[in-house]
């Protein structure tokens, strides 16, 4: 792969040590690997230095031969053999450590990804309210990418560069402490130059990032609204504004990249300067015979100066990428450290055999009937309650934020098989009630009872398994139509899926798709119309076959004629279940057992359609179109 340049501005982690430790904890089982990697890196770096180090005796050997006319060939071969050995060993350890490191890095990365995703799935809905998709997505893309870069390349290169710098420095010191003084001075200059240019380039990149964000934001907004732009003949104005932003971006980017681009030639040529100065002073010293300097020493030394500047530039670059990666890792760990959705429920859902006299026994087979298994801690007994879908809300107060209550004392009662409808304007609290029933959000103990059991005692997963929900925005997953319907019940047979699709009146359009039930849906089912997607969602809920059904604007995107067509299917879907319906279109809910009119988190009217119409209150106004529903 092409070498990746560290383009973005440098970010700093808050607690470097902690982040490193945390990453290291994901390398379990690879301790030995890692130790070998470090050893391999050190050997490989030393091989490079040792080769140069051996150059001096070799040259001295030749010079000696020229001076005395007597060639110590044995010595010559010996040195070369040693050199060959060292080099071979070096290349081999490079090969080995890179392989090991790749195993460590890919597995570590996979573990972190899995951990992050598993954690994300366990987080409460509240968490997703607070964080945007883009924000969370960038954990999986940007942050893991920089982490991959760090684990895959930077760590090893960093160690290698550090070892090389130290090793070369020591070797230089051994050959001539005097010349090393020049090295120290050069080192000082190099660090100053890197600091100077680095600071400017980093500032430049921050400016570039800001300009890029603005330009890309504009592109996104305008392209998303392209059709509106066309309808209003706004093209010229859009072009003008875009060109302005684009120019700004170009200026910022040129500035930032100029600094980044000139760093390498400057570093490179500083090392030539260093080389020249060393040659002059070393030459003078050899000629004067000062400090035991020989031609071999000077040549070795000069090779060293060349191999000195490269790792220094690299170290500074790698340090940046390591810091950025650690900052990203911290963001990932912050999500992994989030509190998962609390679930201390102990009442579980079990398949049950129910005898004529009403006694319930647990069954290992799927009987089609369900019971709540309720262990009592106090006396160690277990009782069973049949799952019927009876729900009871008792004076429920709730707010997504503590200071802003959305529900103000809701009390209601839903008998098994009843259809309860909620009506009210946006923000009245309709969806909030359903969010509490399936415990997307929690309320204090005893406020909501399900088949007589406090729902906080019921295991969340079992509670939700006993309810199906069809949301206004249908979310489909990449996979076949079949897979998507089966999402409601993973072990559903093909026949069960067909039956559910027929019930939802989705069968006819599905069979018209290119591959029928095996048509692959991609990009959240983008190739289907909103109405078709809703039909799939209804089929998905149907196949789950739960005692409680929640329909949150489930038919809002289906035109009234089609809705009339699926009404029969919907009726048979709702038959025998407790159903909560939220609908904008009042024709949908006329046949409900009870209609609750909500306003500002309170039930202001309740009753069936006829009684509410007769009451001539809010419902009547809504129904006759005298009042705004929004």
């Amino acid at each position, binding site marked *: 792969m092409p070498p990746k340049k560290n383009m973005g501005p440098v970010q700093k982690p808050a607690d470097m040590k902690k982040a490193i430790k945390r990453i290291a904890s994901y390398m379990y089982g690879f301790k030995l690997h890692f130790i070998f990697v470090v050893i391999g890196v050190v050997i490989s770096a030393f091989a490079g230095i040792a080769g140069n180090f051996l150059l001096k005796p070799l040259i001295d050997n030749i010079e000696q031969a020229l001076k005395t006319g007597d060639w110590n060939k044995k010595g010559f071969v010996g040195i070369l053999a040693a050199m060959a050995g060292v080099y071979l060993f070096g290349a081999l350890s490079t090969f080995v450590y890179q392989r090991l490191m790749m195993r460590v890095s890919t597995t570590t990365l996979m573990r972190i990804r899995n951990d992050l995703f598993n954690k994300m799935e366990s987080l409460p809905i509240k968490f997703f309210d607070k964080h945007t998709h883009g924000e969370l997505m960038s954990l999986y893309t940007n942050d893991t990418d920089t982490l991959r870069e760090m684990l895959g390349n930077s760590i090893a290169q960093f160690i290698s560069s550090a070892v090389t710098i130290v090793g070369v420095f020591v070797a230089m010191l051994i050959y001539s402490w005097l010349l090393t003084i020049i090295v120290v001075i050069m080192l000082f200059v190099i660090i100053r130059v890197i600091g100077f240019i680095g600071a400017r380039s980093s500032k430049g990149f921050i400016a570039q990032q800001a300009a890029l964000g603005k330009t890309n934001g504009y592109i996104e907004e305008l392209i998303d609204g392209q059709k509106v732009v066309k309808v209003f003949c706004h093209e010229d104005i859009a072009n003008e504004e875009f060109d302005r932003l684009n120019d700004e971006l170009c200026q910022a980017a040129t500035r930032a990249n100029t600094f980044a681009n000139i760093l390498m030639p400057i570093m490179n040529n500083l090392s030539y300067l260093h080389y020249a100065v060393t040659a002059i002073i070393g030459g003078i010293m050899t000629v004067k015979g000062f400090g035991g300097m020989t031609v071999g020493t000077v040549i070795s030394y000069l090779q060293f100066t060349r191999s000195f500047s490269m790792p220094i530039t690299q170290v500074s670059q790698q340090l940046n990428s390591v810091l950025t990666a650690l900052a990203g890792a911290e963001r990932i760990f912050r999500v992994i450290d989030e509190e998962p959705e609390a679930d201390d429920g102990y009442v579980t859902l079990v398949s049950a055999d129910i005898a004529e006299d009403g006694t319930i026994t647990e069954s290992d087979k799927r009987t089609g009937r369900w019971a709540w298994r309720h262990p009592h801690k106090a006396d160690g007994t277990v009782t069973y309650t049949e799952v019927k879908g009876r729900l009871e809300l008792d004076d429920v107060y709730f707010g997504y934020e503590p200071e802003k209550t959305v529900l103000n004392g809701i009390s209601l009662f839903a008998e098994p098989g009843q259809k309860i409808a909620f009506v009210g304007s946006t923000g009245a609290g309709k969806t909030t009630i359903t969010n509490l029933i399936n415990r997307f959000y929690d309320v204090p103990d005893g406020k909501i009872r399900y088949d007589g059991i406090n729902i906080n005692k019921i295991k969340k997963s079992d509670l939700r398994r006993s309810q199906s929900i069809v949301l206004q925005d249908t979310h489909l997953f990449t996979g076949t139509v079949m897979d998507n319907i089966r999402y409601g019940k993973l072990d559903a047979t093909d026949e069960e899926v067909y039956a559910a699709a027929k019930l939802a009146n989705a069968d006819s359009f599905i069979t018209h798709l290119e591959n029928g039930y095996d048509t692959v849906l991609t990009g959240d089912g983008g190739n289907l119309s909103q109405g078709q997607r809703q039909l799939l969602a209804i089929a998905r809920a149907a196949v789950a076959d739960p005692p409680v059904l929640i329909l949150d604007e489930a038919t809002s995107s289906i035109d009234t004629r089609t809705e009339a067509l699926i009404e029969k299917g919907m009726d048979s879907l709702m038959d025998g279940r407790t159903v909560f319906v939220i609908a904008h279109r009042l*024709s949908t809910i006329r046949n409900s057992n009870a209609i609750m009119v909500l306003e500002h988190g309170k039930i202001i009217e309740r009753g069936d359609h006829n009684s509410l119409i007769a009451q001539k209150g809010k419902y009547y106004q809504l129904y006759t179109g005298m009042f705004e529903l929004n």
Partner: protein
Amino acid sequence: MFRTIFSHVGQYKKQALLTPLTMIGEVAMEVLIPTVMALIIDNGIKKGRIGYVAGMGLLMVGMAIVSLSFGALAGRLSAVAAMGFAKNLRSDLFHKVQDFSFANVDKFSTASLTTRLTTDVTNIQNAFMMFIRSACRAPIMLIFALVMAIRMNSRLSVIFLCAVPALALVMGFIMTKAHPMFKAMLALYDKMNSGVQENLIGIRTVKAFVREEYENKKFTENTEAVRQAQVRAEKLVITTMPVMQFIMYTCIISILWFGGHMAVKGQMETGELSTFITYVGQILMSLMMISFLFMMFIVSRASMQRIYEVLTEKPTVTDPASPSDDVRDGSVVFDNVSFSYFDDMNNLALDHIDLTIESGETIGIIGGTGSSKTTLVQLIPRLYDATEGTVKVGGKDVREYSLEALRNNVAMVLQKNVLFSGTIKDNLKWGNQDATDEEITEACKAACAHEFIERFPNGYDTDLGQGGVNVSGGQKQRLCIARALLKKPKIIILDDSTSAVDTATDSSIRKAFREKLADTTTFIIAQRISSVKDADRIIVMDNGKISAVGTHDELLETSHIYREVYDSQQKGADE
């Protein structure tokens, strides 16, 4: 393709061409310096000539400074050229997209267009900068260093004859092998990330169906697949480093071996020997660089292809040669009009439509999902062109008007409508840049938007945020209607534009339309019968055809579809 894309270098051509030229200067110095080095050792140090050492040393310092200047200049030039190139490319793409018709946009999808303008441009920009800096530098370095080495000692240079092809062969082999593996890896990587995206969007569905474990399992399978693909691809690529080391070390040892013998025999100086080793490094490094460039070129090719597609796309709806700017009145005629989104007469969305609408009429359009209601009205402002037949506005074929004149006179409120970041007033002014405050207020009153706007603390100066997130669905729809009204059009089309507005407000909007816009031809597409009931005529669409036309009362008698829709909405209301 390359010619089209690189023609966008434009005014930065000078910099783009100068970059490799200055690079030559830098490379020349870099290759000469080791030779000077050999001279210092062999002629100066060994012979004890301090003056010579100092002189050559100073020459070297001078060369380093020259090299540095060239290098820094190349850095600057390449930044200017690459960023300028990206700017031109981005700008031309954006302007191009502004010329796109609806059909063009549909073809690419907005998400894909956005990626092409952002990620793809950045990819090309980086590749381009790398390319102009290194594409010349590496081969020149290779050639210069080889020439210098041969001049210094041609016999010893034979070693390169083996080493260079060997390394080239190995690198070529690895790169060609690795490329498909990386492609496979990236595909898996995309799949993994789109899985994450789906889970983010559908988290409520996942939780409601208790599918966390199932999703975890799916994700774990994906990450494992990514890991394996990554191992497969990288296993190959990371061998380049030890292979390179091996070949380089072999060269050094052989040079020292043969060179050492020569030196002892007095055929070569030791300083030259050391310089020769420097050349080994330069030659092999540039070879590595060339193979990396090759790889990068292949990677950025995909981005180039995607940008090329946009640049060469022909806008399907364009101004006629001598356009007419005068739209006489708001009459509309469909003369035997058929339309297909795929330009395929066997797959028609509109099937031979004949329709004549007088100026000032109010037309309601009703029909099920997919009955082509929207398609019908989109032909009026020429958002699409009819596949067959002609659409006439004000007595003239719509294709005879300039697009600007036509669309300024035919205002359309889209079903999927968008507000832009900025204040309410900024957004309304899209309809008319020079609208006065009175005109704006008047339009808002007609659209029943004035009242809620006034309730905002900042009134008309309220900031909407990106995509108009600070207003509700119904408020957004009313703002969009007001925006269209400000155009003072002769024809206005409301495509399901009041679906989120309550029936009472809906009817007062219609009332305002009747009173204030009596001369404006109005099209109302709606789901609710109540929205179209009072129209002069109602068109019932079914499956791309006009099923019936008439007033509400007539249709109740004649159209069974209309009756069914009416019944489905009316049932229970009269009880």
